[in-house]
C-alpha cells in the first residue's frame, strides 16, 4: 500500500498541527495569505482537531477505576500505594473528579463544595492582582527566604514552608501577607526564566485534611488541598499538565 503525499501537502499538515519550526511556520503563513485554498485546508484540519478533542477529551476527566491503580505483576496486596507513591497517588486520584480509594476516604474528608470554591476564588483573585505587578509583586523577596518563611509562619500561627522548585525551573520571587476571609493568608510567588509566574496561597481552614483537587477559573489552573487545617492552593495561567509537577513537588515538600 503506497500512497504519496506532496511536500506541500505535508507542510500544511505540519503547520496545522503546530509541528513546523518557527521559521518555516512564518514563511508558510505569508504564503497562506496569498493562497485561500491552502488557508481553508489548514482551517479545516484545525477544526477537525478541535472537534475530535471535544469528543474524546471528557475521558480524561472520568474517574479512574481503582483496579487500574493496582500493580498486578506484584504479589497480592502490592499496589501503587506504597510509601513514596502514596503522595503521587492521592494527587493523581484527586484529579479525577474527586474520586479516591475507599481506604483513604476516612483520612481525607472532601472539602465542602462551597469551601472549595471559596479557596479557588481567593487564589485566582490573588493571582490576578499580584502576578502582573512589575515593580512590587512581593513584599519580601525570595533571597530572604528564611525571614519570609518565619514572618509568614508567625502571622499565620502555622508552620509555612516555601518549597524549593528550582528543579522545575521555578525560582522563588518572594511572598506577601494577605487578608483572607478566614484571617491572615500567605502568598508565595515563583517565576521561571520565561517570566511565567505561579503562586502558592495558604490560609486557615475548618477542615483537618483533604484529598488533592483541581479546578480552573478564568483561565487559571488551580490545584488545592488541605493539610493540618491549612488549605494550600497553587495557581498559574498554565495548562493542568504543566502545573501538575509543580503542585506535586510542592505537595511533597509541604505536607508533614
Amino acid at each position, binding site marked *: *500500500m*503506497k*500512497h*504519496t*503525499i506532496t511536500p506541500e*501537502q*505535508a507542510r500544511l*499538515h*505540519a503547520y496545522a*498541527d*503546530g*509541528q513546523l519550526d518557527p521559521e518555516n511556520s512564518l514563511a508558510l503563513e505569508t504564503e497562506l495569505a496569498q493562497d485561500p485554498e491552502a488557508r481553508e485546508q489548514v482551517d*479545516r*484540519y484545525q477544526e*477537525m*482537531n478541535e*472537534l*475530535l*478533542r*471535544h*469528543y*474524546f*477529551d*471528557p*475521558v*480524561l*476527566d*472520568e474517574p*479512574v*477505576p481503582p*483496579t*487500574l*491503580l493496582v*500493580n*498486578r*505483576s*506484584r504479589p497480592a496486596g502490592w499496589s*501503587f500505594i*506504597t*510509601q*513514596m*507513591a502514596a503522595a*503521587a*497517588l492521592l494527587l*493523581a486520584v484527586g*484529579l*479525577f473528579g474527586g474520586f479516591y480509594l475507599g481506604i483513604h476516604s476516612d483520612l481525607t474528608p472532601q472539602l465542602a463544595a462551597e469551601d472549595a470554591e471559596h479557596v479557588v476564588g481567593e487564589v485566582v483573585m490573588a493571582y490576578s492582582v499580584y502576578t502582573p505587578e512589575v515593580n512590587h509583586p512581593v513584599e519580601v523577596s525570595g533571597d530572604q527566604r528564611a525571614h519570609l518563611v518565619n514572618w509568614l509562619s508567625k502571622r499565620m500561627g502555622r508552620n509555612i514552608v516555601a518549597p524549593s522548585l528550582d528543579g522545575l525551573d521555578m525560582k522563588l520571587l518572594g511572598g506577601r501577607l494577605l487578608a483572607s476571609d478566614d484571617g491572615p493568608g500567605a502568598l508565595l510567588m515563583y517565576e521561571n526564566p520565561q517570566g511565567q509566574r505561579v503562586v502558592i496561597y495558604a490560609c486557615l481552614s475548618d477542615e483537618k485534611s483533604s484529598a488533592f483537587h483541581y479546578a480552573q477559573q478564568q483561565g487559571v489552573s488551580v490545584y488545592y488541598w488541605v493539610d493540618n487545617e491549612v488549605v494550600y492552593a497553587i495557581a498559574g495561567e498554565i495548562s493542568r499538565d504543566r502545573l*501538575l509537577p509543580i503542585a*506535586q513537588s510542592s505537595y511533597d515538600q509541604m505536607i508533614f
Partner: protein
Amino acid sequence: MTTRQSTFSAGLIENIPHLRRYARSLTRDVQQSDDLVQDCLDRAWSRMSQWRDDTNLRTWLFTIMHNLYVNGVRRSKRQGGWDDYDPHHTPDPRQTGQESMIQMRDLELALSKLSDDQREILMLVCVEGLRYEAVAEILGIPQGTVMSRLHRARDALRRTLEGGEPMKLRRIK
C-alpha cells in the same frame, strides 16, 4: 521503593487518563478499553527494566498499547467496536454537551467509517498532539507513511463530515 520505581509509578499514574482516552478510541467500549489499559499497565510494569529514562514514557506506553491492540483485540474483533456502530444510537452524554449532540453524532458516524489505521493516526496526532516522529515510533512505520496516512485519514473524515457519499475504504496495493 527505589527512586526509579517511584518515578515510574508516578509516570504511569499520570498517563492513565491518556491511555484510557486512546483505548476508548480504539475499542469504543468502556469495559474493553479499560481491559486494554490494564493489560498495557501490566506489561509496562513487567518491562520496567526496558524503559530508558531518556525515552518519553507516554510514547513508550502508547507503543505497548498499540501492539497489544494490534495483536489481540484487533485480531479477534469483539462486539461493540466501531464495526458495530449504530448510527441511530444516542451519543454518550458524558462525551457531549446538549448543544453539540448532533455534531457529535455526525463525528461518531464519520469515525465509524474510517479504518482502524486512520482512527489511530487521528487520535495520536490530532487528539494526543504527539510529534510525527513519536507517532512513527508508536505505530512502527516510517514518518513518510505517517504523513500519507494522516493525509488520507483527514481527507476521509472531512468527506464524510461534509455529508458526501461515505467513503468506502479502498485498499490500493
